[in-house]
């Protein structure tokens, strides 16, 4: 069974997934960060594939992506760095990025490589569900990869139901109309959206991403969903405190405590 499904079977909430940009702050910190995250108690890791034009990202991840590219990160190098990752960690690993580098890599080759190194899912915000179903699904399924779809407060109920039908693994709930970036708390309106989706009783679990940054925002989303994805706030920690396992542990503990 795919590790993502297994995670949701064994953990019934308060799931914490952490995003970081591969190649940031230094080009060879990828495996080290993943190991530290598992040791610190993260349930899942999203490895960002840096892209030159990350239109869904706010300033923090734009900067980490640019720095990672300047450091020489690429899809080829990332797969090389992940070659032995499954000897080191057991938690589900996803790749998150933009469609163009994947298309350029070759979709079949990309999915093959993912399976080879032990990737469980892929998040490509600019790959629309209808195109995924027609052009990409076969490749993903052949290589036991889940494609994770996004929904937002503006996504209609009908479309959410369709996306729920297409999804396996989990649904990525974008917290509000925004690009990525840390927020201190969610508004009543945001919470109302979490609650509205929760009442829809979808087949898939939902994780909230974009804006979750600390204990408060994590608790707010956990009241209604299976957990959260933290990106920008963690990238900021890497920037300020480096990749040491101690500061990573402190960060996770502060959110979970």
């Amino acid at each position, binding site marked *: 069974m795919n590790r993502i499904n297994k995670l949701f079977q064994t953990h019934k909430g308060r799931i914490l997934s952490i995003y970081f940009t591969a190649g940031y702050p230094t080009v060879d910190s990828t495996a080290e960060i993943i190991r530290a995250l598992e040791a610190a108690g993260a349930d899942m890791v999203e490895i960002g594939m840096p*892209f*030159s*034009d*990350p*239109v*869904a*990202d*706010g300033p923090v991840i*734009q900067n980490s992506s*640019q720095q990672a*590219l300047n450091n020489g990160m*690429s*899809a*080829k190098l990332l797969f090389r760095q992940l070659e032995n990752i499954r000897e080191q960690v057991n938690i589900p690993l996803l790749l998150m990025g*933009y*469609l*163009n*580098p*994947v*298309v*350029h*890599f070759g979709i079949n080759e990309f999915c093959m490589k993912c399976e080879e190194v032990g990737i469980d899912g892929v998040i490509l*915000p*600019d*790959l*629309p569900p209808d*195109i995924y179903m027609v052009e990409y699904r076969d490749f993903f399924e052949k290589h036991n990869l889940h494609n994770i*779809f*996004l*929904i*937002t407060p*503006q*996504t*209609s109920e009908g*479309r959410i139901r369709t996306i729920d039908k297409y999804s396996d693994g989990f649904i990525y709930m*974008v917290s509000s*109309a*925004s*690009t990525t970036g840390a927020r201190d708390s969610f508004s009543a309106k945001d919470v109302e959206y979490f609650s509205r989706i929760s009442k829809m009783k979808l087949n898939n679990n939902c994780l909230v991403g974009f804006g979750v940054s600390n204990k408060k925002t994590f608790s707010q989303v956990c009241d209604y969903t299976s957990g959260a994805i933290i990106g920008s706030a963690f990238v900021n920690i890497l920037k300020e405190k480096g990749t040491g396992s101690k500061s990573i542990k402190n960060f996770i503990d502060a959110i979970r405590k």
Partner: protein
Amino acid sequence: MDYNVNERGYYDEFGGAFVPEMMYPNIEELRENYLKILNDQSFKDEFSLLLRDYVGRPSPLYYARRLSEFYNTRIYLKREDLNHTGAHKINNTVGQILIAKRLGKRRIIAETGAGQHGVATATVCALMGLKCIVFMGKVDVERQKPNVLRMKMLGADVVPVTKGNMTLKDATNEAFRYWINNPVDTHYIVGSVVGPHPYPDLVARLQSVISEEMKWQLEEHTGRPDPDFIIACVGGGSNAAGSFYHYLDNEKVKLIAVEAAGKGIDSGESAATIALGYPGIIHGSKTILMQNDDGQITEPYSISAGLDYPGIGPLHAWLDKSKRASYENATDTETLEAAFQLTRLEGIIPALESAHALAVLGKHKFKKDDVVVVTISGRGDKDMVSYIKYMEEKNF
């Protein structure tokens, strides 16, 4: 061969709408409504009245006698430079602002390179009393100063973008991000035949007035509606799309699109997408784009801010692949020479973008009685700093 967009938003294999879910409701709203609005009689009446009385259409088709003598053929200039605000860009913004109003939007955003699209957007926003925010790369803010000042005078907020190469691609990224963060009430007036479906088709239709007029104007001048050649510059490709539109199915009319070669195709400083690019996805569209081995979009370069873009509209990707149009390019130097040639032979100072189209005239062997239409997409006022620098270098 079919050159129209299909129901799924594709020109054969190119096009589509590769947008994050955050943008989907806005794109979908536009997709559902744009044809209905364009075909609505009240829209048609309002649009054509504004094009006539506000933009100053039809734009003249001018027989360039001395330029024709020089190249020993018959050259006609489609004078989009004479439009209000100085370029073809206003055809599109007038149309889109009417659509935005019908969709109940209160705020307009736009990206701009040369500043012509920004000025054209700020202008129609002033005309309709809508709030206007224009994203512009910081490099372009500096090299197109007069247009920045015009936008400000027109009441627009100009946001300098300091990311990446600080040119058109980066300005477009920022406009996308703004729209993601402000999905309600805002319409994004894309300035060329780029972006997710329906933008390429919408903008091509709004610019198609160029070739619609060309037909009857040529008939008046020459006795037949069809030229032998149409030449236009391409950044994203909207003035070329408008110039080609009504001739696409008439394969006797040869279509030539001219990209910016910058310092030369092999110099590493170029914006000639068709010459240097590969298929991929840029700004929500599957098309040809300049990218490296890792699929990272590369930074383009051109002396002309309006052509300084690493992608090209999906229609053009298809016209190239199907060989319906030929994609050529001109370097900065060839372009400057062509601009001065037009100025000295005809008394017309073209925009640097438009001068790229003129720069290939000498590379073709036209027959004496060939009818060659060159679209002068804009006027050169905004480029005076570059032109003066060139004059100083050449001791004119």
